[in-house]
């Protein structure tokens, strides 16, 4: 996981608000709460075979943008993540966008496999 040739770690992931929310192109519904959001994001990161960041930095007044290329089970996947902070500078809202459509649907199926039988599975059920 590199940005400008150096290792990169998303610090916002360690600074989630208690009532943080997560939405995504590959999900239905909204995941709520630090425990749920962290569990989903950590699982998602395990599926990436690499992450090459084109940009990771401030966006507008209180947001942070990540724009990276990855691959999941050999399929090239582009990702844009928008993180919005609250007044206490904690991560309040996360939106994760995978593309193209085939990669987004593959990712959704993978997450359903991963979370089958858990309370999180509802976000990926019925993925075609």
């Amino acid at each position: 996981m590199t940005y400008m040739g150096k290792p990169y770690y998303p610090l916002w992931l360690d600074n989630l608000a208690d009532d943080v929310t997560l939405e995504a192109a590959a999900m239905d519904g909204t995941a709520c709460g630090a425990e749920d959001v962290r569990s989903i994001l950590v699982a998602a990161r395990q599926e990436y075979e690499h992450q090459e960041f084109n940009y990771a930095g401030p966006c507008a007044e209180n947001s942070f943008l990540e724009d990276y290329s990855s691959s999941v089970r050999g399929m090239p996947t582009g990702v844009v993540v928008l993180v919005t902070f609250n007044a206490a500078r904690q991560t309040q809202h996360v939106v994760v966008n995978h593309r193209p459509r085939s990669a987004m649907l593959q990712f959704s199926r993978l997450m359903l496999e991963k979370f089958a039988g858990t309370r999180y599975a509802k976000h990926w059920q019925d993925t075609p």
Partner: protein
Amino acid sequence: MASTYMGKPYYPAWLDNLADDVTGEGPAWDGAIQGATAVHEVVVAAKEIYEFQDFHYAGPCGESSFLEDYTSSVRGALLYVIVLVTFNAAGKAQRLVVNHRPRSSVLVLSRVMLERFAGTPLAKHWEGTP
């Protein structure tokens, strides 16, 4: 179709400033749409398909990008959208990434776009939508 930001009509100025070799990508289609004519045609079609656009933010992002964050709907399905526009050194829109969510609404939009572009060279981007 009403398109408003902070209570006022909004028009994306970048749409009239596309680089000749601009690309358009997103979770609602496969492949990258290439070139100003094709990207313009697809964006205009999507705007016609949206039932409204209610912008929460439209402004700079980083040094050379522009972000739009809006809510919309397509055939009654709520659609949340984040658009990332990256400019080239000449200030023209070089790369467009249109991010729709949630998944069910992405697929509704993809099917509607396939209907809209059926029989055209652009249809390939939405063919195979489940």
